């Protein structure tokens, strides 16, 4: 019976992914952005070479999709306070100047393309809306205590 075996492979691949790769990403936002980046925009399939070598391409794809959904659901359930904390931690992890980050995220809204397939539009709208407010809070905090490198200059291309 290929069904249960395949399911076990996916579970094992997801477990492996959590233990080896996602363990270093404490915040769900960071995991969401990372997992969305493993998805091909044209096919909607997820790719992870190491995971595909250890398991199979299909199992790796499903495991990545499962973890992606999991990260998104964590964001839906997060309070605004947690989201602001997440966003700040993610900002620090990117090592980009805070001002540039805020301007890019406000202008491009990159989180809109990071939604997993099959998520209800209301949940995604709630997350987008909370991120918009969280960005405004973070921006206001950064303006209150400006740091070197926080340029807040406009986007080069709009």
């Amino acid at each position, binding site marked *: 019976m290929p069904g249960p075996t395949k399911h076990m492979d996916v579970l094992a691949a997801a477990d492996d992914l959590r233990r080896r790769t996602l363990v270093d990403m404490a915040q769900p936002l960071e995991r969401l952005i990372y997992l969305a980046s493993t998805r091909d925009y044209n096919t909607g399939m997820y790719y992870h070479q190491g995971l595909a070598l250890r398991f199979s391409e299909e199992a790796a794809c499903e495991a990545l999709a499962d973890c992606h959904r999991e990260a998104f659901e964590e964001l839906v359930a997060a309070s*605004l306070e947690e989201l602001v904390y997440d966003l700040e931690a993610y900002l620090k992890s990117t090592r980009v100047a805070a001002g540039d980050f805020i301007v890019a995220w406000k202008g491009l809204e990159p989180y809109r393309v990071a939604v997993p397939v099959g998520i209800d539009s209301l949940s995604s709208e709630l997350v987008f809306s909370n991120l918009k407010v969280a960005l405004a809070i973070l921006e206001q905090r950064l303006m209150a205590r400006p740091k070197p490198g926080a340029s807040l200059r406009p986007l080069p291309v709009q």
Partner: protein
Amino acid sequence: MIALVLYLALGVGLLVVLWALARRKSAPVEGCGRQFVEARQALRTLQLGLLPENLIERIFDQEDYRYVTATSPGEISELFLQERSRISLMWVRRVRSEIRNLMHFHLAYSRLHAKLSLLTEIRLALDFALLLMACRALRILLYLRGPYGARSMVRVLTATAERVCAASEKSLAFLNPPALESFRRDSAGHGAAI
């Protein structure tokens, strides 16, 4: 003369009722599979996408608002309220739309397939009416008072919607995978395939 007119009117009224009932009975059974799938989809959307307790709690709980007002200036609080009002109105609109889909399914097809008692049907009709009214009232309240001005109405609406979902679940139970599996097993012996 007046009595004759009254009896005639009563007779015509009864004929109209009979005609309406006969029309409902003859709803096309063939090709109603799509309606079943749509009803199943509406039910899934309600149960998994719109009515989960944690999602409703997230939208209507005041914790986020308290956090914003305590830590941020007025314009951010205003932005937050605008955003949360938009989301709460979107939620009511979506719930109403899915409830209407389920109601149309019950009116047209459910009675042909599900063995619902008269009492259950009456209760269901009342719940649908209550839900549609609650959605309308909630929209007005959300417009007037903002996202945190109608928590008791939200509770009434979700409780009633859950009741309707439970009744619809029974009507659509035969579309669940285990039921389909047993149907497939039964049909396989007779050479039929799905």
